């Protein structure tokens, strides 16, 4: 890889201001006349683009020392220190630099040719880069290819990876881009009382908090008001939990009492009036065909409990306690409502405040929307129309299907016939060639004669004479043995293993590189842009370079294997030839067309 001829060396390296400095990771790119350093993190300031003319010397650490460093000293004092992932990389660059400096030394004023590959790495995110590098490290074959083509300047980074999107996605950290809705299962406060001490603990996870906020606007409001200026978050939640606990012990009087002396607590214990007026609004949207009498506003909190049998404290309480009562169904319905609403906030669940605010915001937005919503009524109307007609009475909605008219199925047969015969060596005319002279009647007669003949005489004996039988048996045996030879002992035994390791390696390498090239080659057709044209050409050249190599392999192996190898190589050559042919043909009619249209597009 590290031969002088090559134009460009691209290596991953970290640039260091000093040897101590951890350095910034990036890509070091060496061309004949200049070296450029692109940090992986585009934002970082350390970018370099220095001509070798300005470099007067380079130092480097010995192989096997702990860092693979390369230090380029500029004539005006400054120096660039690069640390490479491994020594081979470093050495490649070192050699290159050496030659480059020498070159720019004596022929300093050479016209700088621009690198073959347009640098496209800039717009790649660091993460993207990481992934690619990881992939390359994992898969040696991939790395080979990458070296050969991208760094060899036949393909651009982008092109190379374009064909491997799937690969990239696969080990892409599995964070679904979809937004997740609110959990379906509801959070019921299960106080965990430990036996002896009479302290009760609730544990709140971010999700739960989110739910609480989503379902209990009042709590959210309270949170925004109290925390942190009035009380710490912890205090807030303890209070809340306290309230919840009171609810769980269905002791309304106690609740009321507590509420009386602690107004913050009261907030939690009281009815949630935000919900109440929200409910009022909702009532309008309810499906009109619904009989509201049946269950008076079932999912609206402003009426405490409705219909649902209450097993606990049957005793009638005077109205002052009314607000402190809460039934399970209310809780449930509220939850359902929220889930169905499918309101999603894009905030990190971690910090509570932002969650609360976000929710509040969305809420306001909605309220605003509802307030000024004509759409709502419209939607409501069509809802009515859909409801009123009972579905059984509705006409079947399934749309009309496209008719099909096929003239003559015989065509389908002919699609087979022609070639079937050609393969079997005899022509379609073969079918025609046996005319039968006799009429139907005669034909039948002779047929029946035959039958009756054998009926009376019985089977001919011996059925066949020995010689014929023997000949046939022999013939069949030979036929079998012949195609047995073809198939080899067993068809799925791999030839490759029989080859010497080196040859196999080489073959496979070439094979994979050919595959790669061909992929890109064919994908660049039909050629519509200049870019594609150049790409195709580039690829073609690359392939034509491989072509002779294959020949070499064929020669290289010793005679006994040569047959097999050539067999193996043959298909590859064919593939290449096909590509070339295609290319030439394309070029031809491009020229032809270029007459009427400039540059043939």
């Amino acid at each position, binding site marked *: 890889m590290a031969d002088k001829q090559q134009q460009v060396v691209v290596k991953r390296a970290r640039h260091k201001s000093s040897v101590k400095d951890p350095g910034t990771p990036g890509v070091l790119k060496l061309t004949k006349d200049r070296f450029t350093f692109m940090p992986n993190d585009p934002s970082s300031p350390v970018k370099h683009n220095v001509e070798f003319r300005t470099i007067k010397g380079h130092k480097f650490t010995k192989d096997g020392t702990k860092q693979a460093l390369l230090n380029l000293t500029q004539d005006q004092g400054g120096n660039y220190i690069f640390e490479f992932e491994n020594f081979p990389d470093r050495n490649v660059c070192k050699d290159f630099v050496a030659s480059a400096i020498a070159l720019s030394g004596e022929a300093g004023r050479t016209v700088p040719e621009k690198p073959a590959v347009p640098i496209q790495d800039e717009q790649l995110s660091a993460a993207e880069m990481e992934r690619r590098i990881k992939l390359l490290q994992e898969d040696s074959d991939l790395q080979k290819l990458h070296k050969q083509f991208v760094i060899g300047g036949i393909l651009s980074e982008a092109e190379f990876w374009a064909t491997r999107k*799937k690969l990239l996605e696969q080990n892409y950290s599995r964070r*679904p881009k*979809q*937004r*997740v*809705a*609110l*959990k*379906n*299962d*509801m959070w019921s406060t299960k106080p965990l009382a430990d036996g002896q001490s009479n302290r009760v603990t609730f544990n709140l996870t971010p999700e739960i908090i989110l739910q609480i906020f989503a379902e209990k606007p009042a709590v959210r409001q309270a949170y925004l008001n109290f925390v942190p200026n009035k009380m710490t978050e912890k205090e807030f939640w303890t209070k809340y939990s306290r309230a919840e606990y009171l609810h769980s012990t269905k002791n309304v009087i106690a609740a009321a009492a507590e509420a009386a002396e602690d107004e913050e607590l009261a907030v939690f214990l009281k009815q949630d009036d935000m919900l109440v007026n929200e409910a009022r609004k909702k009532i309008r949207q309810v499906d009109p065909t619904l009989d509201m009498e049946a269950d008076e506003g079932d999912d609206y909190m402003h009426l405490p409990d409705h219909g649902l049998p209450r097993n606990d404290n049957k005793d009638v309480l005077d109205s002052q306690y009314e607000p402190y009562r809460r039934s399970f169904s209310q809780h*449930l319905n509220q939850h359902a409502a929220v*889930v169905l609403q*499918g309101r*999603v906030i894009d905030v990190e669940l971690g910090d509570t405040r932002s969650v609360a605010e976000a929710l509040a915001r969305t809420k306001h937005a909605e309220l605003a929307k509802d307030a000024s919503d004509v759409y709502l009524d419209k939607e409501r109307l069509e809802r009515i129309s859909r409801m009123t007609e009972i579905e059984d009475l509705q006409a079947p*909605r*399934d*749309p*009309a*299907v*496209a*008719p*099909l008219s*096929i003239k*003559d*199925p*015989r065509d*389908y047969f002919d*699609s*087979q016939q022609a070639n079937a015969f050609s393969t079997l060596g005899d022509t379609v005319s073969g079918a025609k060639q046996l005319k039968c002279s006799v009429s139907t009647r005669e034909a039948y007669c002779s047929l029946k004669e035959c039958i009756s003949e054998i009926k009376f005489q019985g089977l001919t004996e011996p059925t066949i004479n020995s010689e014929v039988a023997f000949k046939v048996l022999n013939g069949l045996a030979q036929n079998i043995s012949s*195609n047995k030879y*073809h*198939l080899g002992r067993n*068809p*799925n*035994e*791999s*030839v*490759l293993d029989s080859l010497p390791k080196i040859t196999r390696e080489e*073959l*496979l390498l070439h*094979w*994979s590189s050919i*595959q790669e090239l*061909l*992929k890109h080659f*064919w*994908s660049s057709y039909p050629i519509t842009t200049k870019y594609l044209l150049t790409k195709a050409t580039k690829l073609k050249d690359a392939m034509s370079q491989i072509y002779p190599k294959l020949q070499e392999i064929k020669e290289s192996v010793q005679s006994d294997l040569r047959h*097999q190898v050539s*067999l*193996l190589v*043959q*298909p*590859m050559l*064919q*593939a290449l*030839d*096909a*590509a070339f042919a*295609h290319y030439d043909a394309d070029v031809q009619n491009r020229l032809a067309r270029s007459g009427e249209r400039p540059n043939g597009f």
Partner: protein
Amino acid sequence: MMNRDINGEGRKLNRGEEEEEEDEDEESGRGRDAWERAYADERSWESLQEDESGLLRPIDNKALHHAQYRRRLRTATTAGIQKGLIRYLYIVIDLSRAAGEMDYKPSRMVVVARQVEAFIREFFDQNPLSQIGLVTLKDGVAQCLTDLGGSPESHIKALMGKLECSGDSSLQNGLDLVHDLLNQIPSYGHREVLILYSALSTCDPGDIMETIQKCKGAKIRCSIVGLSAELYICKYLCQETGGLYSVALDEPHLKELVLEHAPPPPAIAEFAIANLIKMGFPQRAAEGVISICSCHKEAKFGGGYTCPRCKARVCELPTECRICGLTLVSSPHLARSYHHLFPITPFDDVSPSITNIPQKLPKSCFGCQQSLLNPGNLPGPCVACPKCKQHFCLDCDIYIHESLQNCPGCESFKQSNSVTNMEE
């Protein structure tokens, strides 16, 4: 139990009265031994009936089953209709918490997987030119398990690897994902989604109605097979997009419902866009040729096919050439779909009036020579082909329409044979 009733995670409504006895089954089921459950679960008693003399006999549900099949037949075979022969189908499998339910044995999830496997095989058998992809719904998001492809094995393997359920399922996320995926495919392909939905709810990040309209716009035919109860939103979705919605009662029924989606659906008029598709008909590589196939990197003797355009080697058809992306098929693959173009007409039941006069009736089934007479030489149930007027036994009837796809009678009489050709 509570939680169940809350979010309605009850059981199929359409099994109403069975409810309680089934329930107690489950209660006591926990206390039962494995060997007992084996019977309780497969409900062996349901396959028994008491005859007049009070003896237990296995139900012969043959006639019944046959009737069902004929119903399907009538809906399915409609001659002279375009069928979506080239389908791009995404199977969306709900792996939410609900898929863990045990009402199907051993669990919904497993049963579904089993059916999907069967379906995939049948699907490719019937639509060799089509492709399938798998999507799973869990934890409120949709994941693309496998993307569109033509090889059954790969899909099945992927699915079997990924069988665990958790969280909620979001119809919307699923549809969105599939929509994006299906948008890339060419216009001539028929875009379809088959959703196997266990959950009784969908919790979506946004308004699903919009998504449904989006799918409708994209000409995606969404069908759903439910495992629990009928859901309004599913019904609505299928109605809008011209798909089928059905809810399974039990495993056999589920199988039936799923397999109904294997034959190509009639093409919707405004969806159907005729188009020419470029395809390659690769030649079989001659015996004795060794080459490294582009699918798995190893040298193969003989067999295999070479792409006519780029001469790359592929192992089986149909497939898309790895190198030049040309669709590679063989003429038999086209032939496999032909019977969808020339569907075979349903047979008519032989009306009892004729059956009363045995001498008018052939003694045995034209197809399989089985006697058409019940024990006691009474003419048994049989059907007749409207074209060739031959009589067939019920088994042959089913076989002929579900697998064979042509009528032995019509095929074995010159004149009627030509008639059929003319008609098609």
